[in-house]
């Protein structure tokens, strides 16, 4: 791993901007090497593209898909433009459909508790960092509606549940409908 970084630095010194593919278990070593070589504090962030470890046991199709998912980040780093969502060494954003599945998993407990009270929370789409969903209010277990929280507050709760697993989510918009 550190040899890869040293090779990259050797190429940089010859005027060749270099991006490195590295498995994510080596983040600590990458940062230590960055410090040892006297590289800028943002060198790792700007020049390394992380892959999920391990890669040695993956099929070619899986490896191709890993690169496909990161090619925009590779391009951006070759051009010195760090891609949004890849800063600070975070994993690149998941595909939208995968992200939506992850978001639904994150709110599963909340959705289940709302369902007990007669409301159905569904997440419909994730576009440009905005997670959109619907709260369908059916026959509630309370007459005055106080058994479920107001929709804006619910949106904030969804955001709080989803953001730890999907940092790319910038906002949550819930549409309220009565059935």
């Amino acid at each position, binding site marked *: *791993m550190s*040899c*890869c*970084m*040293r*090779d*990259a*630095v*050797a*190429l*940089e*010194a*010859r*005027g*060749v*901007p*270099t*991006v*490195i*593919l*590295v*498995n994510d*278990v*080596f983040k600590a070593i*990458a940062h230590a090497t960055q410090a*040892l*070589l*006297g*590289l*800028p504090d943002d*060198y790792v962030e700007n020049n*390394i593209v992380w*892959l999920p*470890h*391990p*890669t*040695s046991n*993956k099929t*070619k199709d899986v*490896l*191709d898909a*890993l*690169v*496909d998912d990161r*090619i925009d980040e*590779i*391009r951006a780093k*070759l*051009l*010195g*433009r760090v891609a949004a969502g890849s800063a600070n060494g975070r994993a690149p954003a998941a595909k939208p459909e995968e992200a939506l599945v992850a978001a639904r998993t994150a709110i599963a407990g909340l959705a289940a508790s709302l369902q007990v009270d007669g409301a159905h929370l569904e997440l419909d789409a994730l576009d440009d960092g905005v997670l959109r969903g619907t709260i369908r209010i059916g026959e509630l277990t309370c007459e005055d509606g106080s058994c479920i929280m107001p929709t804006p507050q619910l949106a904030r709760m969804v955001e709080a549940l989803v953001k730890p697993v999907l940092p790319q989510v910038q906002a949550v918009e819930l549409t309220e409908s009565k059935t």
Partner: protein
Amino acid sequence: MSFSVHDPRGGRTASAPLLAKRPRTLANLRIAVLDNGKEQADVLLARAAHLLKEDGAQPQFDHKPSFSRIAPAEVIERLANCDIAITGLGG
């Protein structure tokens, strides 16, 4: 009897390395693809090179004899005529 104790911590002995100026576009650039020999590095790098070729970059493949050693000077020398580079696998 006396002992000499060496400090194993290492340290920085050279000035900060210079980083290369980034290009504005990938079109028509020669891209060095340096495979360090780790398992599957060739697959990952070949895919990246294939996709970057679609942007107009021209891959120049090379490899080094051991992933646990820095690339020999002659390898760096061969690739230094490229405009950009990608290497791996740190894994």
